């Protein structure tokens, strides 16, 4: 197969757009998933309501962390592009 048409190995605008596209849903879904996982723990272990609360907090943290990592990657690619 031929090489994909990538401009000198630079990350495409689509890659940047895709990276940024992942942020909103991760920010929304992570706390929801955290809350449900915490609620399951509440049901199994009888920790109510602390499991749900802890899950929610961890979900927010997970969303924030993913966003931070995506942004860091995006920034690194921008720096790399600027250096070229």
């Amino acid at each position, binding site marked *: 197969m031929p090489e994909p048409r990538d401009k000198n190995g630079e990350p495409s605008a689509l*890659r940047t757009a895709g990276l940024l596209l992942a942020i909103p849903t991760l920010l929304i879904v992570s706390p929801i998933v955290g809350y449900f996982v915490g609620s399951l723990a509440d049901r199994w272990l009888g920790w109510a309501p602390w499991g749900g609360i802890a899950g929610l907090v961890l979900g927010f943290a997970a969303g924030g962390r993913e966003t931070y990592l995506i942004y860091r990657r995006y920034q690194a690619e921008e720096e790399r592009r600027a250096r070229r």
Partner: protein
Amino acid sequence: MKTFLARVRRATIVLAAVAAIAGATYASLPSGLAVAAGAAWSLVNLLLLETLVRAATTPGTEPASVARRAGWALGGMALLLAAGAWLLFHTPALWLVAGFSLPFAVMVLKAVSHALLESRAWRALVRSPWRATAVVAALILAAWWLAPSGSRGERAAGDTAGAPAASGDVAGGHETPAAEGAAEGHTEGAAATGEAAEAKEESGTQKFPNVITLIVNANRGAPWAHTLHFWEPVVFALAVGLLVCGAGFFASRNPRMIPGGFQNGAEALVEALYNFVGGILGPTHGRRFFPLLASLFLYIFAMNLFGLLPLMDSPTSNLNVTFALGFTVFVYVQYVGIRSLGIVGYVDHMLGNPRTVTGWILAPLMLPIHVLGELAKPISLSCRLFGNIFGEDMLLVGFASLGISMLSFTHLPVGVPLHAIFYPLALLTSTLQAFVFTVLTTIYILLMLPHESHGHEGEAQHAH
């Protein structure tokens, strides 16, 4: 005359197909089949009559040829009469007669329209576009004015006679106050509650009828019908998978240096996808992950579009299917992570790459955070795809039911195809959602791959 009959045949075939689908959908499968059979019977009869008349009236034809053709036509008519008698006893007679009358109705309408188009009044009407527009607007206003009054009358009658056949089934729709009252009223026992819940489920928001719901409705009570209904999204998903595989097979079966239409289209699509994946992941990774990502895009795209075909349904408007897709992506991304980083590297990645004492202290906190982050990905993928495609289907159903209620005063299973104007939007969202799913899957794979572009040479390769 020959052209006129050919036009009548074409119009009748289209009309009969629509009427058969409407009959099968809103009445029963045998009713739809009876309409189709009646129309086919009538068309064949007309064809035989045409042959007979042509054989007898064409000047300069050999007498032997005339006799042979007339014999064929008369023999065919005898067979046709026998078939008609059989149909009359084995199919709903009213629907059969309706189908039988279709070509004649088409002929009459064509003759009337021909006379109307030639008339002075019509010429005067269409001479000015403003006048014609005003008449069309007046007709639409009259339809709007009549539609609510028809619905009111129908609803008043429906309280005693049940839900209106046309709008209720098609639209499927929206729960009526009577149904809600019935559901609330049945609270006396567990069995009664179950029945009410079942009734409510039946009258709840439904999608367009598809080929499986038609088969199931025609065979209510059969255990296999219940199983078929239960596995409906899976059946459609498999059908789409087979279609995509078949299309791939036919596109690559006989590859040519100068490709033809289908091969050309398939190659252009694959090349565009290859460049797209390569543009995000880079040449090396792009080639490695291209088969999965391109298959995902084509499969989801085909599934999204499948619901726009008559009597079909989008498997992606079912959360189970989209969750299965999201779960597949999740498992694959974790597999890519383990393959690329190794087991130790993967665990290290999940712990947040601890390198200092503080990092190790925070590791037990980072593990659930990272696990939640990974779990959020398939759920966001599946919910987004499901929500968009289901919403698109409901939009089409909503406007189709509105179109039907506009003509409910006619008491016929027909309506204004209002939902047709949303088809371009549905095409756009179908493409866009397949694209978004693929882009995000690509990004999740990218985030799991070792990241070597920071330029920190001393740092070990790690994923995000």
